[in-house]
């Protein structure tokens, strides 16, 4: 009657072969053991040989009398001993192999040795033999069956009391004493908390400081001297709003904020782990993320597409392609290609998907429950395997099957074919991406309608005269109406531009027109009607009509041929599953790229563009694996979601598709207590330095409580009301008075709140690695703001890094494009990023480290890239017809976005004299101009090296 785990495994696909339904198959699962007729002799055996040992050796920790029940296991009732604890049944009547109790008393397993050493250690051999005998005879047990429910169930009702697991609550805006200070409700929440502690905010930041802050925060680049000047001069109360709208509409916004998401999505372009193979198509997912932020794709939709894009209906092939690219989220994780056991490999991929999804979206570590119920958060193992069933029913396409060292790859996959761009015949690896579904031009500057947005100064979107986007060009375009401000405001660029042949200039200008507004560019004011209609949360795309999905069945050519069917049935389970995954549910081979196609095949040998991503595979529920080991198969758990986060009905899982779509909809449902809060908190963190919940990657019981819970909830609710618009959220936060505060604390405030938890001044923040590198390129005038098509990894193609592909290909890239486009290969991150605490790409990272270490100093002092940028900046400054003093001023403006003080000017002048004199003595030929040029170069480098360059005040 009982089946060994291996026979169950073999059995599963057979059920599928005969087209049995979920219900019938559940009925075929081993039934709970029926109470054996207890024979008196057996009772005697139990009472004499077994019960005394249990009582003596085990009850201390495993009975209802125990002060603390260990491992959720009770051995003092029949039910308890058979149901077992966290790791599974202690005793399976008649089955020695499955009985964990026997394993424990045998001391076979280092981690499961009972009784423990301190309680007398291993039992004598004859006692162990008694237990074996007892289990072999069916574990007769006369003890009451129903005395106590032995299995410790997590108390979800109790667990739900933690703030994290409760739906966000609207809170009244608190009253403040200083009613003149706040510009928005966010300010009122914060000010009220400060006033309660006797604090008051410091003065506002000066204009250049504020502008530098907002440029780096929104687009990751510094403002040009001309932009600073324009902002300082603009006395309009809407000056900041205008800048913010221009920045939000620029394509650089997505490059900055998309990268924040890529940190949490553990984005990388190689497998990492022990055999590090390239992912030459990963960059398409990177670009999809950037485009999504630029288009202000509603965050709920952003999540749904990444988890279930392949299951969404699409209007056309291009949209379907975009939806597939989104699922790269699930495919770009680490892969242990050297794993011999296919099942372990598969469950590791599933684990990566559960871990990344739960941490990136929910800020919770669900993956703890792979091996045991979560120790701190109310997430039982069965929830993990409910999710595992969803991802196990999914096939992940990640490639690594190219010619580069396939012999060393035990787990190669393929890719998903995208629609080839019309009329193009390009080879894989160097293809031009299909145009993004929502190019940057579709970006919709958010409008000030939200209650949290500053009430007074924000211009009404419908009034063209004061519309920020319309007003901005008037400010910046005056100087050189023909040129995009990006060029006009950057002298080095303007110079280069002027030298271009007329045709090139025209082309360049034409591109600016098409590509949408650049930084500070003349963005046409979007008509209010152009604002993307906000889909109501319940309007999340619904699954395709049922008619497109049919029961998984055997392909006709096998089903109709008894010989083949027989051979097929004889294949190992994993091969049968892999084979079936190549066919749609109607038994026909899968195909892709067609309108509304629900499933996607592997790309095989096709040469068109390909993507990493997922598609539904063989749909089934997963079994709990005891302690996470594939050999330790336990009960099958229906596919489902995290119970503690489910308010009301849990979503029903479809029998014929994986359930990813239902999972994605559940994640982004307005009742989900975490998704909106976690995102709002991340945005807050990127703008203010620390999250309202400072443990941004951990909203569980071991995380910190929010510093202002009412504010967090209010923002989360507002975020959802604003159709999950990230741009609106950012806009509303940047336009608060709090964001505009000065950085220096006063002594009194420092006494009360030294850690600035109440945000009464701006916290100093170090720029991240990308911004530091990009800022040097801006200062040198060398930055190339065109998005990179592809990536160094795409050019390199498939292969095994370290064998045939040199790591230096990725760590030492000499490029002038933005840092977000540098290759991100696991274990071989470019030096410029690695040194400044780039997010470890094998891990989900919500908050990057900030360190100040000697290798950074050595990099800035000695690295050739840094020296080259300094030298280019110096050459540009020296080419201007300016006095030495004016040049120093320009250098400060270029590198630090501010004017130097008189003392600083004097110090710089002296330095330049001294250094030039010293250099003249040592450089070849000793020419004074060369010495002066080099001294200028070292001066510009010193500006890059200064703490001020990498900190926001």
């Amino acid at each position: 009657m009982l089946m060994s785990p291996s026979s169950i495994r073999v059995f599963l696909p057979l059920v599928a072969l005969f087209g049995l339904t979920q219900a019938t198959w559940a009925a075929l699962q081993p039934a709970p053991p029926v109470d054996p007729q207890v024979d008196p002799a057996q009772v005697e055996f139990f009472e004499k040989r077994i019960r005394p040992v249990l009582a003596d050796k085990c009850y201390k920790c495993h009975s209802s009398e125990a002060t603390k029940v260990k491992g959720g296991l009770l051995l003092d009732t029949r039910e308890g001993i058979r149901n077992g604890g966290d790791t599974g049944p202690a005793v399976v009547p008649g089955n020695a192999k499955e009985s964990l109790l026997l394993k424990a008393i045998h001391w076979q397993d280092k981690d499961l040795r009972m009784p423990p050493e301190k309680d007398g250690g291993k039992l004598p051999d004859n006692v162990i033999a008694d237990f074996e005998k007892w289990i072999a005879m069916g574990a007769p047990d006369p003890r009451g069956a129903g005395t106590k429910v032995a299995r410790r169930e997590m108390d979800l009702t109790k667990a739900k009391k933690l703030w994290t697991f409760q739906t966000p609550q609207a809170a009244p805006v608190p009253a403040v004493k200083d009613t003149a200070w706040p510009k928005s409700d966010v300010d009122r929440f914060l000010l009220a908390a400060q006033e309660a502690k006797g604090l008051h905010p410091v003065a506002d930041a000066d204009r250049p400081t504020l502008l530098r802050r907002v440029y780096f925060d929104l687009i990751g680049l510094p403002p040009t001297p001309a932009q600073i000047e324009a902002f300082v001069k603009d006395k309009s109360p809407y000056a900041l709003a205008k800048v913010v709208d221009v920045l939000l509409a620029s394509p650089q916004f997505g490059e900055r904020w998309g990268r924040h998401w890529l940190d949490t999505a553990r984005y990388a372009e190689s497998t990492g782990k022990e055999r590090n193979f390239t992912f030459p198509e990963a960059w398409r997912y990177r670009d999809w993320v950037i485009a999504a932020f630029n288009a202000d794709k509603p965050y709920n939709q952003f999540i749904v597409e990444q988890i279930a894009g392949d299951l969404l209906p699409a209007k056309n092939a291009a949209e379907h392609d975009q939806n597939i690219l989104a699922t790269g989220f699930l495919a770009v994780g680490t892969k242990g290609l050297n794993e011999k056991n296919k099942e372990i490999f598969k469950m590791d991929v599933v684990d990566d998907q559960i871990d990344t999804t739960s941490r990136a979206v929910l800020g919770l570590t669900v993956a703890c429950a792979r091996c045991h119920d979560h120790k701190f958060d109310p997430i039982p193992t069965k929830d993990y395997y409910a999710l595992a069933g969803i991802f196990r029913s999914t096939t992940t396409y990640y490639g690594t099957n190219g010619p580069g060292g396939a012999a060393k790859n035990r787990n190669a996959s393929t890719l998903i074919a995208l629609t080839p761009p019309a009329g193009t015949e390009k080879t894989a690896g160097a293809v031009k991406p299909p145009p993004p579904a929502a190019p940057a031009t579709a970006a919709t500057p958010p409008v000030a309608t939200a209650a949290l947005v500053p009430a007074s100064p924000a211009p009404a979107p419908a009034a063209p005269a004061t519309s920020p986007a319309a007003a901005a060009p008037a400010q910046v375009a005056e100087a050189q109406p023909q040129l995009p401000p990006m060029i006009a405001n950057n002298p080095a660029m303007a110079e280069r531009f002027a030298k271009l042949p007329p045709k090139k200039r025209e082309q360049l200008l034409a591109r600016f027109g098409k590509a949408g507004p650049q930084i500070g560019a003349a963005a046409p004011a979007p008509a209010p009607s152009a604002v993307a209609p906000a889909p109501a949360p319940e309007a999340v795309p619904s699954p395709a009509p049922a008619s497109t999905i049919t029961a998984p069945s055997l392909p006709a050519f096998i089903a109709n041929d008894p010989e083949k069917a027989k051979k097929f049935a004889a294949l190992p389970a994993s091969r049968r599953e892999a084979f079936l995954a190549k066919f749609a549910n109607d038994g026909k081979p899968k195909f892709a790229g067609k309108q509304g196609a629900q499933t996607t095949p592997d790309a095989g040998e096709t040469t068109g563009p390909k993507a990493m991503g997922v598609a539904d595979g063989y749909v089934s529920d997963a079994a709990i694996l005891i302690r996470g080991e594939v050999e330790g198969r336990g009960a099958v758990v229906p596919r489902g979601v995290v119970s503690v986060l489910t308010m009301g009905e849990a979503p029903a899982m479809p029998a014929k598709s994986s359930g990813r779509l239902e999972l994605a909809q559940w994640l982004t449902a307005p009742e989900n207590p975490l998704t909106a809060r976690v995102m709002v908190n991340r945005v807050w963190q990127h703008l203010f330095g620390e999250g309202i919940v400072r443990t941004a990657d951990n909203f569980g019981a071991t995380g910190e409580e929010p510093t202002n819970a009412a504010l967090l909830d209010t923002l989360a609710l507002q975020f959802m009301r604003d159709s999950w618009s990230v741009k609106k959220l950012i806009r509303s936060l940047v336009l608060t008075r709090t964001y505009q505060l000065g950085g220096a604390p006063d002594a009194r405030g420092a006494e009360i709140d030294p850690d600035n938890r109440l945000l009464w001044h701006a916290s100093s923040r170090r720029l991240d690695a990308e911004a530091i590198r990009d800022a040097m390129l801006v200062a040198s005038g060398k930055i190339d703001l065109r998005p990179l098509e592809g990536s160094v990894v795409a050019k390199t193609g498939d292969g095994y890094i370290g064998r045939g592909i040199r790591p230096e290909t990725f760590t030492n890239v000499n490029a002038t494009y933005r840092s977000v486009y540098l290759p991100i290969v696991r274990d071989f991150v470019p030096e410029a990023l690695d040194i400044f605490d780039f997010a470890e790409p094998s891990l989900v990272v919500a908050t990057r480290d900030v360190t100040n270490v000697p290798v950074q100093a050595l990099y800035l002092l000695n690295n050739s890239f840094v020296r080259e940028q300094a030298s280019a900046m110096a050459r540009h400054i020296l080419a201007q017809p300016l006095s030495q003093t004016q040049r120093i001023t320009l250098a400060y403006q270029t590198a630090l976005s501010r004017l130097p003080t008189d003392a600083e000017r004097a110090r710089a002048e002296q330095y330049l004299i001294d250094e030039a004199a010293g250099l003249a003595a040592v450089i070849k030929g000793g020419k004074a101009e060369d010495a002066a040029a080099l001294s200028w170069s070292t001066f510009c480098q010193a500006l890059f090296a200064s703490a001020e360059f990498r900190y926001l005040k």
Partner: protein
Amino acid sequence: MNERPYECRGVTPAALTRRELLRTVSAGFGWLAFKSLTTAASAAESRNPLAPKAPHFPARAKRVIFLCMQGGPAHMDTFDYKPKLTEDDGKPGVAKGGGSKLYGSPFKFEQRGQSGLWISELFPKVAEHADELCLLRGMNTDIPNHPQAFIQLHTGSAQFARPSMGAWALYGLGTANENLPGFVTISPPIQFGAQNYGSAFLPAVYQGTRLGAQRADVGSASISNMRNPELSTELQRKQIDLVQSMNRDLLATTANPEVEGVIESYELAFRMQAELPKVMDLSKESPATLASYGIGSGPAGEFGRQCLMARRFAEAGVRFIEVCHAGWDQHQQLQSKLTANCAATDQPIAALLTDLKARGLLEDTLVMWGGEFGRTPDGRRPDGRDHNAKGYTMWLAGGGVRGGLSYGGTDDYGYKAVEDPVHTHDLHATILALLGLDHEKLTYRYAGRDFRLTDVHGTVAKAIFT
């Protein structure tokens, strides 16, 4: 394979994240003054993350030199004497699929030193140090595949990105010489990834600094960004002075303690770029010393340079030094290739032990030798052995371990550890214990959980302590 351990993701909660602490590399007067003005935070909290830290209990070793033999050296041909295997040479083996034959060691063993440890003729010079060696003959690990086992040997986990043991040691103890990297790895194999010396979720300040790579001449190895080709030291100092005056201005106006860290990082960097090339420069060593390591001519030259450099780093106060010799994967041609490997490493290792002892460093330097696993006593190919994770040998010397000791053992043939087994996790727990660190207390909070090098495992092999 059945005992594949899934790493536990949840352990005990601890008090505070150390992130804020680690933001500043140094706690100079400005920071302290600011802190004392504003908060009662103890001075200890604002310490430099690399500053020497007190161990949990008195340490037996202050530093580690790990002689990593990548590929899986055959224990039954080197340090695990198996007379029964020799006796049964040619009998059927147990390898899956059948057809394997037991392969008695083609090398002679002899009892060496006062202690009478059995050591193979392949290591004549190391054998002279028999009474310093503590043979761990019951080693075992989980996975008999190079990449996974190698990474598990270094980080404890083959499955997840975790910090390497050197990073943990540096995190736990800080460094004795801030002018040098605290964790150095010389000539690591590239194809197994930087994770073997990475810091994963620990701050990057704890990651290993790589010098050279396998199959490259370590003599020409350098650390990047150590020199500005355009500026003399003097002129660069002027430039740094300008940077520092700007930094001090910023510190004065913003009171941002992290700026203090930046200031300190420049001073450290300036000293480091002066000191590191000196430590790596072997030219000041006497001809006798160079000859003792086999540097000059002969097969031991390359590894000799690595070992000598390791001694120089140890002497200079580096906390964790790894040197790597690859190519111990003898599926065939065992006799010739193993002989060659041992010829390339025997003299340098012996010289390192002699040298450390002569300088009084061996007593507090833990020297560790071994690979990611061992080899099978049987094989299907003539003159070859396959991977064996179930039993093998590593050895320790110096740093508070009992010399002349054979601890643990495998069965008669060397298939499996049967006596006092020491798993990779146990080895890690033991190394940390020798350094004065409790492997259960050395934790780091990441994603809401406290992680350890040993995950939920690890038993300290106390019996080997002096």
